């Protein structure tokens, strides 16, 4: 009898803490947190990575990530990330933000960090609602979608339109990579990981601003079961928030040499 060689084919990333299990059933944050951790390991940058936990449900990101974390004020993560990476360019910074954080209170910080071509990874989780505070209307809440602050459904005549962040940032000279993915299937999760990998690579190479938008379910605040939430996401969100790559300056270019493309 020969000895059996055991090889580990799947396990917990080193950049992830074993105890982090706090999100609601069916929430997308856990998947996205894990993708970030996997990439931190794959790039071998765990000890020089700083994650930014925003205000919102993912303020608990530090309970999942096994690397340094700072919690920023609501919407200010892009400014904090700017301060971090400008003051110490060796740091790999991940600015993790939700839709209210990034596209409402932090719109100015987002647009100007993008326009300056700041080199950090922006992970933008779009679930079309405020989670932590209890299901209020987000800047990405769909027309007709109900929330605790638009109980009759979002009426654009009163509340304006859902903001498409990738399309909004597309014109800015400092942007190196923009893509929108969705965590609704294993295949699409892998696509999100591919986008995030490129964002990490560009941020490490100081190519300019990177953002990966991830369309993600929030069953609790949508008032649905996890399977219902996934169906609703697929049947409603993806028509408006179309997945794909919105900007990629390419491996060779940097935003410094090709502004305004």
């Amino acid at each position: 009898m020969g000895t059996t060689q055991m090889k580990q084919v799947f396990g917990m990333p080193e950049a992830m803490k074993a105890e982090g299990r706090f999100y609601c059933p069916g929430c997308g944050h856990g998947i996205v947190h894990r993708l970030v951790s996997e990439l931190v390991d794959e790039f071998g940058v765990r000890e020089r990575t700083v994650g930014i936990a925003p205000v919102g449900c993912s303020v608990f990101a530090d309970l999942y990530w096994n690397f340094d974390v700072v919690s920023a004020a609501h919407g200010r993560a892009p400014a904090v990330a700017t301060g971090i990476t400008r003051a110490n360019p060796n740091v790999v910074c991940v600015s993790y933000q939700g839709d209210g954080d990034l596209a409402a209170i932090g719109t100015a910080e987002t647009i100007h960090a993008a326009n300056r071509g700041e080199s950090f990874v922006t992970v933008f989780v779009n679930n079309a609602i405020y989670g932590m505070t209890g299901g209020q209307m987000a800047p990405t809440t769909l027309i007709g979608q109900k929330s605790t602050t638009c109980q009759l459904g979002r009426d654009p005549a009163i509340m304006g339109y859902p903001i498409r962040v990738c399309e909004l940032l597309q014109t800015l000279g400092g942007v190196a990579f923009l893509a929108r993915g969705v965590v609704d299937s294993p295949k699409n999760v892998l696509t999100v990981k591919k986008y995030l990998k490129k964002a990490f690579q560009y941020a490490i190479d100081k190519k300019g601003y990177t953002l990966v938008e991830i369309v993600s379910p929030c069953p609790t605040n949508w008032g649905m079961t996890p399977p219902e939430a996934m169906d609703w996401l697929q049947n409603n969100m993806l028509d408006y928030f179309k997945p794909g790559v919105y900007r990629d300056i390419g491996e060779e270019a940097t935003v410094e040499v090709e502004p305004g493309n």
Partner: protein
Amino acid sequence: MSEKIPIGEKVLMKGNEAIGEAAVQAGCRAFFGYPITPQNELTAYMSKRMLEEGRVFIQSESEIAAINMCFGAATVGERSMTSSSSPGISLKQEGISYMASAELPVFYVNVNRGGPGLGNISPAQSDYFQATRGGGHGDYRVIAFGPSDVQELYDFTMLGFDLADKYRNPAMILADGILGQMMEPLVLKPYEPIPDLPSKQPWRLGDPSTPDALLITSLILNPGGMEERNFMLQKKYETIIENETRYEEVMTDDADVVIVAYGTASRIARSVMETAREEGIKVGLFRPITIWPYPYDPLNKLADRVKNMLVVEMSLGQMWEDVRLAVEGKARVHLHARTAGGVPVQTEIIRDLKKVLASKDGEIVRNF
């Protein structure tokens, strides 16, 4: 360092620029600013000097962004700075509160203009409450200097960076439009750090040599946790009060009345003192140099023998409240206050000094 900067020599320099050069000399790694009068010379100066030194200068999209950039730089252990004037400092209070709570050092400057609201661009001291009571939300304090000349703007900028690092707490200068804009001779002293500066190595983020998975946050949700943090901060503030309270007393020994004034108002008070003494009025000057921590105890002691004090300030009785707190009823505290570009006038202060000396028990002299 730029070869054009004659370190160690006496030069003529604008107040705003003296602050900038002191920051460069003190090793400020990053400056984040947003335009507002009357501090614009400082951001303009830094836009050139920081780049000359190969350091970071960003004109941010807002004051809120600027202070949060400082927050970021502080988390990775680098010295950073921002400056603004009154309405802009109001916007920065969010970040200052977060930094005080998370125990992050930052140095910032408020070149005070007239308020409230958009106010005007004239000199004022009306952000005294904001500077001395924390300024933003929550239980916290910031170390606040009230310099009275360009040399002190330079010196306290250097010291401000050091004390911010030493106590891991925001430190600031409260200047005004006169101090920021005027030119005055000063000696460009070489930077000498205070002796007991602690290393940032144990807590700074993104550094492979620091402990694993550090967290910097101002969010503490577990019951009692935030209260415990606040008591810990309070203990630190008590150490700061003990170690860092600074003030100056001039000719108080034989004084019948003492003027209490800081910053620009104290310069005027100094001239008043000379003129009034020529007229036979025995007047002294008590000048708080740090407005937080405030020199309550020395003022209290002074009130044992001086029974009349005249507060001269460019705000409507804000520091007057502190002097009244300090003397605990042992002296009568009178007020000569101007605001929003109104600058105290020598002859009018002397008029009020005479009124104070002629006043009866229980009477408080006020100019308005």
